[in-house]
């Protein structure tokens, strides 16, 4: 199958000349954009199914058989399946206390990040993995903020993953109520501003606007939309009492009516009546999830990650209409995007710069790498500027070429390519001969890794390198300019 797929890609030239992508370009484009990196196997399945059916299949990950070896492997990571309570009991941690806590945190982080990496590299449900990455990033939570070290595991698993092709409103609600988000953006401590502190109450009390602001700006409406400071404050009042019970022993969502501001509020022109409780926040989420600005903002962000850094207004308009019509059905919105002429246009082909995680995962996929221990890879991602689960700001990482095209990042990519191809990344094994299907000529090596005809910059540089080892050639390809785009 491998040989057959490689002979298939021999037909794919570097850039499509015609106003439409050829069948081969469409296959490679789908494999580049909707996976963590094309492989000969991916191209073979696309060829077998036809690209449209393959895309539709990726939109239904539940119908795709998972790689059995991956499933066995994932069972080894006990912490990623645990509830908050189990995790806290098994791996106790008190911020700022004790050395045992630090080792527990390291273990939790490593298991969380390593399973994400393994899925990105090996899962057959590649689009689902990309979306899990996209949506976690959209609703970003910083792993290293206090008790979030104990909460991000269940946040990613329970609040993000089940909804990535579900309904936006469900996803929004799940993030809103998850203790990881309540803690990260301080809402758990935001209480009715006018309530008098009780005499024995140590902690000062009052309103905290952090979550309310990011909910409007980053999670739903987008910063360009005309909500006011007053709206932020009113939304914060609606969410008073959305808190966490037993932060250190299980951490569950709890609505505390004593902390809730029961007075009337006005949010984006809607009256939130006085005298209610948890419903206030739920109503705000309803207003936001069905707001046209949200439809447009979410469509823009998806198109920026999957289509182009600057997607056209027409495409965003059609996606936003699909958002509104389907009441936020994310599968419908994705399908609208992935069947749009903009997605399949020659202008979109190889037009996206890989983010560091995409670059590293695609290099691991291209070389058929086996990951025994991820610590060197996780360190590499930190050096490249994208440590997993460790983006401090609620904005998440930006998917734009400008963000990642700089000296430090390029040098990091070149060095990583060389290290990987020479089997020098600790904890990672590659069988280069197998990955290259026995090819030794520089141009063929480039072709086997890029899955398309290498461009002149690669060919001209490599053509006189017949004395150079295939590993070094492969490193030059992985760190070279062509491999940085998808």
């Amino acid at each position: 199958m491998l040989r057959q797929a490689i002979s298939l890609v021999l037909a794919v030239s570097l850039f499509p000349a015609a106003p439409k992508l050829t069948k081969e370009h469409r296959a490679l484009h789908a494999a580049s954009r909707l996976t963590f990196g094309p492989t000969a196997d991916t191209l073979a399945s696309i060829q077998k199914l036809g690209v449209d059916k393959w895309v539709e299949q990726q939109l239904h990950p539940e119908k795709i058989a998972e790689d059995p070896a991956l499933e066995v492997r994932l069972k080894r990571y006990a912490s990623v399946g645990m509830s908050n309570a189990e995790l806290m009991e098994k791996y106790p941690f008190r911020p700022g206390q004790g050395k045992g806590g630090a080792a527990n945190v390291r273990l939790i982080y490593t298991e969380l990040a390593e399973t994400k990496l393994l899925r990105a590299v090996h899962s057959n449900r590649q689009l689902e993995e990309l979306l899990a990455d996209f949506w976690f990033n959209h609703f970003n939570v910083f792993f290293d903020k206090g008790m979030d070290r104990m909460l991000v595991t269940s946040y990613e698993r329970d609040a993000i993953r089940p909804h990535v092709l579900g309904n936006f409103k469900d996803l929004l609600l799940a993030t809103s109520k998850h203790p990881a988000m309540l803690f990260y953006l301080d809402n758990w401590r935001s209480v009715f501003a006018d309530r008098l502190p009780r005499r024995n109450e140590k902690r000062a009390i009052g309103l905290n606007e952090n979550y309310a602001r990011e909910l409007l700006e980053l999670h739903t409406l987008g910063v360009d939309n005309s909500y006011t400071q007053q709206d932020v404050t009113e939304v914060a009042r609606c969410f008073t009492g959305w808190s966490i019970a037993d932060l250190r022993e299980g951490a569950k969502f709890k609505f505390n009516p004593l902390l809730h501001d029961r007075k009337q509020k006005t949010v984006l022109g809607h009256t939130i009546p006085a005298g209610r409780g948890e419903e206030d926040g739920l109503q705000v989420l309803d207003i936001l999830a069905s707001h046209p600005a949200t439809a447009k903002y979410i469509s823009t962000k998806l198109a920026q990650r999957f289509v182009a850094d600057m997607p056209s207004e027409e495409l965003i308009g059609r996606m936003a209409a699909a958002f509104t019509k389907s009441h936020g059905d994310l599968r419908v919105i994705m399908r609208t995007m992935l069947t749009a002429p903009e997605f399949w246009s020659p202008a979109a082909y190889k037009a996206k710069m890989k983010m560091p995680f995409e670059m590293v995962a695609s290099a691991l996929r291209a070389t058929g790498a086996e990951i025994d221990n991820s610590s060197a890879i996780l360190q590499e991602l930190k050096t490249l500027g994208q440590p997993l689960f460790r983006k401090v700001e609620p904005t998440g990482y930006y998917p734009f070429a400008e963000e990642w095209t700089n000296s430090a990042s390029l040098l990091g990519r070149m060095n990583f390519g060389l290290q990987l191809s020479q089997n020098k990344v600790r904890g990672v094994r590659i069988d280069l001969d197998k990955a290259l299907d026995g090819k030794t000529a520089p141009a063929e090596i480039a072709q086997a890794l890029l899955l398309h005809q290498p461009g002149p910059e690669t060919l001209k540089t490599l053509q006189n390198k017949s004395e150079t080892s295939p590993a070094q050639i492969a490193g030059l390809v992985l760190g070279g300019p062509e491999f940085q785009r998808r």
Partner: protein
Amino acid sequence: MTSNTRRAFVRNAALTAFGVGSAPAWLTRTAYAGAKSRKVLVAIFQRGAMDGLSAVIPYGERRYAALRPTIAVPRETAIDLDGFFALHPALKPLKPFWDSKQLAAIHATGSPDPTRSHFDAQDFMESGTPGRKATRDGWLNRAIPPQPKPSPIRAISMGGTLSRSLRGANPAVAVNTIAGFKVRDDAQDDFMSMYAQSADPMLKGTGKDTFEAVKLLESINRNQVDSGITYPNSRLGQSLRQIATLIKADAGLEVAFADSLGWDTHAGQAPMLQNLLGDFANSLTAFHQDLGERMADVTVVSMSEFGRTAKENGNRGTDHGHANVMFALGGDVAGGKVYGKWPGLEAEQLYEGRDLAVTTDFRDVLASAVRHHAGTPDLVKIFPGHQAKPLHFFRPIQ
């Protein structure tokens, strides 16, 4: 236009102008023998919004303590500056520079744009065009003066990404560490060739800048002498340590950018600020000691996207506010003084009833530093749409 679609490939036009294989005049550092007296401007961005009312405390204000019942810095621990303002105790290491008049503070500075979004406010401050999202390049890149023989490391951004402030038409490089800024395994020439021939203008241009900087930094690295100064092991401390190395190497550095992270103190801010301000002070102090006399040519200016609420919030923290304080440190700074018009903390004096009002546009502070740094540059080009009124916080040039 959405907020993100403004990002465009600014450098494309500038980059295609470069040929490949031009004579590398900068290959030896001696090429910069005449660069010794060159001024260096170092910009520090305190991301997350520093609480300026805790950094330079208006403890002479009647309402200061009342607005902050649990987080006001106690009078007895504050370090008096002029009877009205005081430094946070964690900034104590900086007091000698205040006394020697090399450190100035500019209070109630900020943006005319009212946003309280970190994302927008940082973007506006770094582009230098508040309220205008279409600006593609950063103020610090525009501030780099034309130069007949520019060094490949004239503009350095510390960290894994190139800061927004330094993006633009002038070459600028992002450096994680000087020691690690190289290609392994003798692959440098091959990579250089591939990137030089790339059809992708962005990768081609960045590749060119990168390899030129690699060669120069390699020679600096070889000749590096350990100064024996201990910097904090923080992002800011380590960034300043490397910037000092580059300044001392006389390799043509003109502008540098460093980040300090984690200033978003919504809850429990007192211990957080103790650490953050302590790190800020210790990093700057080490930098000053490390540079010694070279500090005469260096100006450090600090900024943060906005200030924080005058009143503390419900969690012994503060929320997003408006005006803030900026610092300037350097041999030419006319220090020992708090600049700027103080707007007051009375209810009617606060911006939107909650935040310190802006009386000095942050661009006027930066414009002053730029003008001093680069002679008399075209300030309208650096801060388009703004009639800059540079503040005078430098000693007159002799």
